[in-house]
């Protein structure tokens, strides 16, 4: 049951009204109406009235517990300064927002303090840049137009370093960067890397002698054709996507080892 009491004090021509709402058991929508003969001067931040305040008083959802509301008015304190006009329990509603001190909320409200990307000198590839893998710049439509060779190379680039970055960004990834790849994947990735190198050499060849040499190194025209049609890029992206999905699932599922061992 809610208990309501209020008091008023008068200083320098301004009446300060204090309202106490105690022992709210669930989130509750309350309406507190000013009974004094004057306008409500609500609490403000940044010059704007706080959420829930209007010309007649306060109306909003309060979290369980005890709360104090206060406002000012130029009217003289005569009689009961305020009344509780309405109380409705609304267990599912979100209480009136106070400034949250959760780190993510602080960043959201105050702004990311990181220096802008343009301020960072572009000194070659930046392996620890957080935007490098988030933006996914290589999946834009115009990059489809590039030769499949350079894309295959890009896909390999995307693989290992970007995933390691992803691990750095995870909250619980301490020490992940030292983790080794599973042994089954090593030879396959090495083969993919070799083919990407070959594709790059082929794509970069501009003169006849260069092209001849590149084709010979790749093992002949038939091999070149096989390399072009192999679909390496698609497969590598598939692996990357699946690996990322699995990593997300693992990140979402915390295994309560301590609890389980206690139960066992």
């Amino acid at each position, binding site marked *: 049951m809610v208990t309501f009491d209020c008091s008023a004090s008068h200083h320098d021509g301004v009446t300060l009204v204090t309202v106490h709402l105690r022992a709210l058991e669930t989130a509750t929508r309350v309406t507190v109406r000013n009974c004094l003969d004057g306008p409500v001067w609500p609490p403000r931040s940044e010059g704007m009235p706080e959420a829930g305040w209007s010309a007649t008083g306060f109306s909003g959802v309060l979290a369980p517990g005890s709360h104090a509301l206060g406002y000012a008015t130029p009217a003289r304190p005569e009689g009961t300064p305020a009344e509780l006009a309405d109380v409705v329990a609304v267990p599912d509603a979100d209480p009136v927002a106070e400034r949250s001190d959760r*780190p993510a909320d*602080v960043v959201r409200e105050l702004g990311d303090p990181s220096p802008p990307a343009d301020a*960072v000198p572009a000194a070659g590839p930046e392996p*620890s840049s957080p935007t490098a893998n988030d933006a996914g710049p290589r999946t834009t439509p115009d990059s489809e137009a590039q030769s499949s060779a350079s894309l295959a190379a890009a896909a390999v680039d995307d693989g290992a370093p970007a995933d390691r970055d992803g691990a750095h960004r995870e909250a619980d990834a301490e020490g992940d960067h030292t983790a080794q790849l599973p042994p089954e994947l090593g030879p396959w990735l090495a083969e993919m890397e070799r083919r990407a190198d070959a594709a790059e050499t082929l794509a970069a060849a501009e003169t006849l002698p260069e092209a001849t040499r590149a084709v010979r190194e790749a093992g002949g025209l038939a091999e070149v054709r096989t390399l072009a049609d192999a679909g390496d890029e698609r497969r590598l992206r598939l692996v990357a996507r699946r690996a990322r999905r699995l990593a997300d699932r693992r990140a979402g599922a915390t295994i309560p080892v301590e609890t389980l061992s206690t139960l066992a």
Partner: protein
Amino acid sequence: MILAVTGGKGGVGKSTVAYNLAAQLDGCVVDGDLAMADLPAGHGPDLHDVLAGRATPAEAVREDGPVTMVPCGRTLAGARAVDPTKLADTLERLDRTHRWVVVDSPAGLRADVGLPLAVADAAVLVTTDSTAALADALRVRELARELGAGLCRVVLNRVGADPATATVADRFGAPVVAVPDSDALATAQRHGRPVDRTAPDSVAAAAFENLAAAVYACSSV
């Protein structure tokens, strides 16, 4: 106990106050200015590494200098690579192993100022008596209040012979400690040493002693 040394405006002496206060309290000072680190750095992992997940908070603590500290990286690329939300957790973890964690906050009003305030038990505001510095410090005081960091003291830095401490105290609603403009202090800071080691009898050293005593008093309330 986490103590945020903050102030809004740049160049008012936040780093100097944080460093010397940490020296007095025998605490750990954290250089929280992620993009413009100010406190002396050495080799080894720093706050950028911690916030990017490459090192633990304990690994970044330097105990070889005159003041225990967590330095911050100097590169903009490093500042861009950090996850700022980890700052809160990092400070709380340092708080478990150190009696006093003094955070040297950057200028401005962005999340790198707000995050230390969100986890801090108390704040020390640093300002000079210039109008711009006072206005910025009042804005930070507002933010500190919203984020639940009680204002312990206002440091009126670089004051002359007759500081307007009463006016400032009235404006901020908190007691003021005046730190005089001092060559001894500037020299000590330039050399990366607290002033109570280089000039223990100076007026500045006495001012920090007062400030530390006041912070002790705040913590026991």
